[in-house]
């Protein structure tokens, strides 16, 4: 006997009708200012969550030099996030600034991709994540340097040099760990294997962005998919690593469907501003 109740056809039809939003209210995409807010939020959230993740290494990195490298990258990303989130707040027009958006939003309202919220794991996993994300990030910001939104274009143009360095540094470590000892290689293989399933989300095409793409505000990552693959393969072959086997893609971060990890990250990041609202030092 099955332990679950039989799902009646009408219930099933109702559930299907909710797809792909599931239990969440469908978004109102008719509002262009709302869309631009949503897009700036994604750019800011990607940068802030990854910056916070990297900052978790502070004082724990394999050497004091690596500690500084990771903290530098984290600060670059948090700087970009501040500008994108301040801009998002201005687009929204409800008086929220970057700090308000960073410290007073809960999990369901975050729009970062799932890759950046993945746990640091060991140093190899952190570098695998950085390599796969920064390669994408650099190509995206390069395109966004020509965005029709002047503020997005300016922040992207400033950020692209920073991110190019993040990509170079991460690629160096992928090669050294992948082409290093048996232990470092196994760790890099495991790290890439963990992160690989989150790549498709970076390139997912979304109807909802169509108006922003048409106006030249947003960039379509599909335009640089081939270049992305080429760059990833080039580094991995230098490292003597095979591409991980195909995995089932995990999507949903852009809709606020996050993994268990994000809540823990936000709890640490938001604890102080929420405990002492408006506090300054």
């Amino acid at each position, binding site marked *: 006997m099955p332990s679950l109740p039989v799902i009646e056809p009408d219930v099933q039809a109702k559930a299907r009708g909710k797809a792909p939003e599931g239990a969440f209210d469908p978004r109102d995409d008719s509002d262009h200012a709302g869309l631009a807010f949503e897009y700036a939020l994604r750019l800011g959230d990607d940068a802030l969550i990854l910056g916070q993740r990297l900052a978790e290494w502070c004082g724990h990195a*394999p050497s004091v030099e690596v500690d500084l*490298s990771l903290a530098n990258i984290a600060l670059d990303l948090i700087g970009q996030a501040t500008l994108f989130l301040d801009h998002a707040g201005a687009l929204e027009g409800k008086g929220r600034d970057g700090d308000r958006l960073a410290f007073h939003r809960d999990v369901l309202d975050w729009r970062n991709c799932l890759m950046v919220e993945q746990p640091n794991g060991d140093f190899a996993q952190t570098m695998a994540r950085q390599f796969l994300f920064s390669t994408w990030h650099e190509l995206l910001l390069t395109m966004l340097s020509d965005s029709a939104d002047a503020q997005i274009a300016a922040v992207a143009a400033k950020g692209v040099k920073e991110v190019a360095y993040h990509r170079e540094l991460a690629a160096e470590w992928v090669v050294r760990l992948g082409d290093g000892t048996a232990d470092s290689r196994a760790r890099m293989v495991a790290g890439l294997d963990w992160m690989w399933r989150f790549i498709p989300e970076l390139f997912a095409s979304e109807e909802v962005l169509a108006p922003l793409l048409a106006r030249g505000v947003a960039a379509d990552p599909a335009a640089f998919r081939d270049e992305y693959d080429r760059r990833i393969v080039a580094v991995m072959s230098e490292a003597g690593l095979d591409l991980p086997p195909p995995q089932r893609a995990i999507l949903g971060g852009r809709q606020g469907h996050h993994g268990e990890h994000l809540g823990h990250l936000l709890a640490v990041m938001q604890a102080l501003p929420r405990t002492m609202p408006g506090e300054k030092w």
Partner: protein
Amino acid sequence: MSRDWPLWEVFVRAKGGMSHRHVGSVHAPDAAIALRHARDTYTRRMEGISLWVVPSASITASDPSDDGPMFAPAEDKIYRHPTFYEIPDDVTHI
């Protein structure tokens, strides 16, 4: 990890036309990573436009216990300073 890494001496050129100056050292597994570490450790505040890294093991240093014979003989050779000499008034452009 860093205990197993060799030490590299770091030199920074502050701006074009200046010489590279020694600023400190970093641990790194190889020269390329040593440059990254030098960049992240010593040029975070716009300190330079060019970096050198040199394996510390490649530097031959004088022996501090030998400083008498090495450096003391120069002490009383004040005529080696250009200011020792009086310049005649009719010599210009010097």
